[in-house]
């Protein structure tokens, strides 16, 4: 419930700042999760969890990374690439990881709380900067958002390559596809 509300807040904030596509995508995701929760987890996107050899996953990710690097930013090619990535990760993420032995529950809880607080602080600081940056044209420089600070770096070819590489590696790390049974 907490996470569903969190995603609903993200969707609302996207609508509020005029990012309609972002808002609609997150709203659809929230609706899907709510229906799944109300029906006791009956939405099944795949019949069984996907597993693949590590070389195949890395090859596909590498090809996708090359495509995203070669294609100009904000182009229709990137839209296509992002849709392919989005649908694929939704299919993979829909099947949760099986439980595995880990750290003591108290340590996991402490870590989750600490990371949640820090993530919330970052979001609030960013939101404050965004609101203040809208007060005048000069304020955009005085109260830079994370996007405003990172955009010049990602606009450079080297920055574009580094961003795509780190972003894809982060996704692979979160999905852990090859470590599934």
């Amino acid at each position, binding site marked *: 419930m907490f996470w569903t509300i969190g*995603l609903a807040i993200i969707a609302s904030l996207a609508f509020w700042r005029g990012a309609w596509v972002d808002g609609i995508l997150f709203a659809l995701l929230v609706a899907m999760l709510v229906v799944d929760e109300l029906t006791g987890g009956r939405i099944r996107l795949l019949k069984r969890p996907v597993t693949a050899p590590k070389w195949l996953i890395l090859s596909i990710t590498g090809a996708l990374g090359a495509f*995203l690097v070669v294609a100009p930013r904000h182009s229709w090619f990137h839209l296509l690439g992002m849709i392919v990535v989005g649908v694929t990760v939704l299919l993979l993420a829909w099947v949760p990881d099986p439980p595995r032995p880990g750290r003591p529950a108290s340590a996991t809880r402490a870590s989750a709380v600490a990371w949640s607080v*820090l993530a919330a602080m970052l979001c609030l600081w960013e939101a404050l900067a965004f609101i203040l940056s809208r007060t005048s044209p000069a304020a955009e420089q005085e*109260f830079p958002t994370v996007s405003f600070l990172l955009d010049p770096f990602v606009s450079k070819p080297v920055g574009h390559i580094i961003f795509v590489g780190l*972003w894809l590696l982060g996704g692979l790390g979160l999905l852990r596809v090859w470590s599934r049974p």
Partner: protein
Amino acid sequence: MTRDVTIAGYLAIVALMLALEIYAQRKPDRVAPLDDMLAQVMTSRIIRVGIIAAWWWFGWHFLFASTV
């Protein structure tokens, strides 16, 4: 001045994140490292989909959508 304060705020939060992870690596039975914590919480579908959606949106925001 305000620009420096804004940027310092971001850097302070990132520094706190790094400090937390360093502490967790040294005392994993008191605070689980980020990777171990994510592995545990992502056994829930909602949390897993939520985190993956946030990751995807980050790429979407910088690569295709307008960034400002």
